[in-house]
């Protein structure tokens, strides 16, 4: 159990990234694709927070328990906070672009949209 648990978060993270990639490659709708991108990104949240985690330690907030008691790594949590903002920012931008694409092309299928059609 504990041996399996020792590698579980890393595998979950890799799995989420792979699954998200699969979704991006197979997607037929840009909004769906943007959600798959969010799944890919959640892999980084899981990875970073698991790296900072420590068994039998509290949160890095010394309000209820005194300073000096065991706490998990606050640096990784700060990085994930930034990462979440990145995710929200990129999603918003992508959704805005997808909306405008639909207005102009009438389609949001990633497998039919391409900038600059070849001349034949």
């Amino acid at each position: 159990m504990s041996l399996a648990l020792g590698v579980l978060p890393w595998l979950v993270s890799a799995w989420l990234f792979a699954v998200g990639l699969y979704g991006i490659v197979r997607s037929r709708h840009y909004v769906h694709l943007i959600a798959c991108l969010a799944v890919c990104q959640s892999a980084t949240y899981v990875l970073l927070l698991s790296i900072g985690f420590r068994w039998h330690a509290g949160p890095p907030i010394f309000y209820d328990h005194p300073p000096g008691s065991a706490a998990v790594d606050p640096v990784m949590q700060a990085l994930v906070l930034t990462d979440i903002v990145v995710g929200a920012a990129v999603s918003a931008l992508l959704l805005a672009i997808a909306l405008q694409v639909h207005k102009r092309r009438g389609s949001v299928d990633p497998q039919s949209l391409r900038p600059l059609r070849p001349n034949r």
Partner: protein
Amino acid sequence: MSPGLRSLLLLLALALLAPFAWHVAKALPQFGSPTAAYGATVNALGPPLRHVSNMVAAVNFDFRALDTLGEESMLFCAVTGAVVLLRGTRGEGTNRRAGLIPGRAVLARSDAQVLLCRIACTLTMLFGLYMVLHGTVTPGGGFQGGVIIASAVLLLYLAEGYGPWRRLIRSPLLDVLESLGVLLFVGAGAAPLLSGHAAMSNLMPLGHFRDLFSGGVMLVTNFAVGLAVAAGFVMLLLEFLEETRALQSDSLPDEAQR
């Protein structure tokens, strides 16, 4: 590339990567037994040096304040970009009137709903403010509080309806608020340079541990982030909602000119 070939290549790449991922997973420290000295040092030094109890806030607003400035600029940039992209075709001019989509029923709001939403909005707003202010003490902070405030403004839409809401929330004002947030952070970062200290130095009185007003300049930057995030997210929601209201200006009567 045909979709089948593409999936095949994807599976090939994943198959190549999988054994390596397993290899790395085994080589990483066991989950739950980290070895990083950085985090441990922050936990040890944060309370005595900075008098704050939330170490994540200490990292975000003091030790690595520059990262947070970059993060806020990123949000600012994304909001500006999304606004540009969404406004593109309709322009800013449609801002002050509500569009009406033909065929969409106008649902009357009951008094109970209006009252409930107004109360909920006030409470949510207060909660957001509480969260911004207590950022250095308890979980939460400028970012989380700012988003909550933005959602309170959204509740106002449910209470008042789209038109009045739109007249209340003006985008130039949001621009100014958002910019003020970023400027406040930049100013707090640059001000120590004037006295010959390093940028982002925390020169304000640090207050008492576990006190609301602890952390010195962290309070300022935390507030700045709250302001910028709240205004930025309201702006984002506003422009996205406008997108579901935008009229095709030539084919439909202009409601505002009735």
